[in-house]
């Protein structure tokens, strides 16, 4: 597995500032509305350039906190480049601000809170009648919805709590799950410590909507391999996370046309997310789940098979890569290159999984090439890194980690809960890994 683990730490994350990075590179951040799982992802409508807000005035001699009105000049995820009213076309004092901090409010909040608006001292002299100026500037302009701050608060509460028990993929043995305990929750990301970990260091990070975590009892219910734990007594306070907290999968009818053992397909290699590989359905489980093996790299005991749901956006019909000009990774040791599916199916006496069984839905995701975002390094999922969308194939995004070679790129679904808007780390208190 290609991992950047241990290669970070040269630049403290506090020194990385998205604002100048976005401006210097003349780039844009993916809009918050592209990330439905992220805070405010479903209620970011109407937040755009030109919107006015009330924000702390940092250019004042007042001893108490005072506010002034600013205009959103540019948006990048949660972050906005702001210009105080009165600066007109002068951009010299523009500043970046995360819109979800408690000091950002809709216009009108100061008056309702009894706080006067005070213009920045460097432009105080510019107008003798600030009332007339503000009436002219604000009439007909847009501001945030009145309950913006309430929504931000609601959207940063998460139902998973410390000591909740879940079933999660065994990171050292992908074909099975283990019981783990929620140890930490940051911005909806969970630090799970495997049960039986002596010192609590045997952990795994994933988002609460990750397809890798399930309620207790899930493995048994679908016939998935499971590492039984020797822990017989629950520590006080431990509770099984309620099933309704987990992401639902689509119901499928397996009784008629469905995947069968031995069928061939193309799949993202979970141990090298840069590659889409020749793969085989190894076992059909209940509720639409499949055990998949990457051809040519399978352990004899099936220990590197992994579980994907039949509707997963990470599995593709035979020919997907060719149609979309993506390099298909042929089975390790297969020497007849270039790889031809027709020959391979004949040689292995196998059939391709029918195209109709795959998820062909393409959401109107809104991502565009070149957009910046914060993305989990899925090879080291505790790390959230500065990244760029470099390619879009239907719903599939190619994520490049800024400052790293292309070989570390990862294929990620557009609805992956491991992608976040610019400013997500700052908002949630998660450490952001800057470009190398």
């Amino acid at each position, binding site marked *: 597995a290609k991992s950047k683990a241990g290669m970070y730490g040269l630049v403290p994350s506090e020194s990385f500032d998205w604002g100048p990075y976005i401006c210097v590179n003349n780039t844009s951040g993916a809009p918050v509305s592209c990330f439905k799982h992220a805070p405010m992802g479903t209620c970011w409508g109407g937040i755009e350039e030109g919107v006015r807000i009330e924000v702390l005035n940092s250019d004042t001699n007042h001893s108490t906190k005072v506010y002034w009105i600013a205009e959103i000049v540019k948006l990048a995820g949660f972050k906005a480049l702001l210009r105080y009213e009165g600066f007109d076309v002068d951009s010299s004092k523009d500043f970046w601000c995360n819109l979800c901090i408690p000091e950002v409010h809709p216009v009108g909040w100061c008056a309702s809170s009894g706080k*006067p608006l005070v213009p920045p001292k460097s432009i105080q002299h510019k107008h003798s009648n600030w*009332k007339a100026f503000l009436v002219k500037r*604000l009439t007909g302009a*847009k501001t945030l*919805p009145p309950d913006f701050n309430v929504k931000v608060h609601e959207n940063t509460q998460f139902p998973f709590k410390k000591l909740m028990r879940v079933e999660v993929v065994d990171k050292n043995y992908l074909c099975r799950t283990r019981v783990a305990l929620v140890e930490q929750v940051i911005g909806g990301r969970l630090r799970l410590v495997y049960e039986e970990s002596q010192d609590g260091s045997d952990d795994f990070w994933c988002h609460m909507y990750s397809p890798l975590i399930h309620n207790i009892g899930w493995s048994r219910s679908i016939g998935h391999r499971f590492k039984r734990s020797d822990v017989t007594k629950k520590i006080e306070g431990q509770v099984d996370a309620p099933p309704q907290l987990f992401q639902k999968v689509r119901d499928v009818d397996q009784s008629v046309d469905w995947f069968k053992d031995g069928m061939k397909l193309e799949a993202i290699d979970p141990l090298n997310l840069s590659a889409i590989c020749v793969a085989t359905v190894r076992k059909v489980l209940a509720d639409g789940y499949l055990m998949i093996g990457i051809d040519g790299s399978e352990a004899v005991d099936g220990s590197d098979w992994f579980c994907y749901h039949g509707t997963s956006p990470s599995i593709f019909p035979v020919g997907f890569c060719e149609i979309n000009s993506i390099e298909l990774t042929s089975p390790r040791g297969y020497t007849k290159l270039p790889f031809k599916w027709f020959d391979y199916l004949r040689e292995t006496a196998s059939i391709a999984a029918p195209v109709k069984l795959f998820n062909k839905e393409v959401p109107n995701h809104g991502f565009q090439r070149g957009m910046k975002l914060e993305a989990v390094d899925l090879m080291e999922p505790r790390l959230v890194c500065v990244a760029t969308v470099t390619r879009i194939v239907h719903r599939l995004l190619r994520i490049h980690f800024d400052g790293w070679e292309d070989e570390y790129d990862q294929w990620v679904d557009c609805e992956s809960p491991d992608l976040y808007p610019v400013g997500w780390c700052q908002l949630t208190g998660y450490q952001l890994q800057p470009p190398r």
Partner: protein
Amino acid sequence: GVETGARKWEQKQVQIKTLEGEFSVTMWASDNHK
């Protein structure tokens, strides 16, 4: 309100308080829950 796409913009009388006094202006706020 005014519909633009799926979004509804609503006119609001917004109160402004400065050191010189208080007044109101008419602004647009999006009803972003729709």
